[in-house]
């Protein structure tokens, strides 16, 4: 093998390695993002179900059940934030947790005073869906 052929061989292999690294990392990012999207969808379902459970006009407020559900939500959000591999998503998850906290505080105040209005659940869910859609870049 002369010097030129050897050089070409090294350059070609280096290029192939670089291309393989780029392709693999893109694949990993896609997998991470897909998994992260699924986590966010899971949080959305929980958040919507929470509103459906407690934003019901004239329903007797069960403080213990309410706090249990809030604690369950807090754990879910904290775990998702801690396990998030797609680091760019962490601030978004923190924003979603802040929305959950705000919704829980609003619902606690309304439901405990028997002041849940007829359109509250629909309107809250509308805002929740909007913020999750933004979080998913839709």
């Amino acid at each position, binding site marked *: 093998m002369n010097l030129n052929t050897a050089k070409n061989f090294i350059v070609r292999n280096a290029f192939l390695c670089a291309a393989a690294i780029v392709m693999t990392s893109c694949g990993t990012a896609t997998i991470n993002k897909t998994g992260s999207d699924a986590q966010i969808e899971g949080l959305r379902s929980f958040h919507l179900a929470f509103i459906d459970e407690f934003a019901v006009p004239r329903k007797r407020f069960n403080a213990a059940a309410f706090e249990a559900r809030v604690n369950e939500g807090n754990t879910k959000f904290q775990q998702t934030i801690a396990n998030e591999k797609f680091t760019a998503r962490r601030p978004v998850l923190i924003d979603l947790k802040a929305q959950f906290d*705000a919704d829980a505080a609003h619902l606690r*105040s309304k439901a405990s005073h028997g*002041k849940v*209005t007829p*359109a509250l659940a629909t309107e809250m869910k509308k*805002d929740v869906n909007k*913020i999750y859609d*933004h979080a998913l870049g839709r």
Partner: protein
Amino acid sequence: MPSDDKPKRKKPRKKSELDSALDQVGDESVVAATKEFQDLLAQAKGDTTELIRQNAEELERRLILLKQRKIDKEDFDYFVENQKRDLRVFIDSQPAQAQERAEKLTLHLLGMAATKIAPLLLAMI
């Protein structure tokens, strides 16, 4: 062409349920604020930016829900605060020269709705 000779009249804006309610305001001290709000709302609803338009439509819908007592003032204020949080990110991402206009058609509009229009609608019930 004959049609070009006719003076062009501006097509009157179709009155919404909210406009009809606000037009009943007789108190001189609030008429100016109500008019300013209606003009801003119409401007926002016709804006080319989707988020500004959506915010205006959503705001109008919720003012109607408030008037119909399907939500109360507490709920209304809560939704306004949610909306403001969401819009702040959008405004900050706009070019500096567009920020003032975007702020006027979103945050200022929401502020007026919460402090002037909502109490007015509740007093009319």
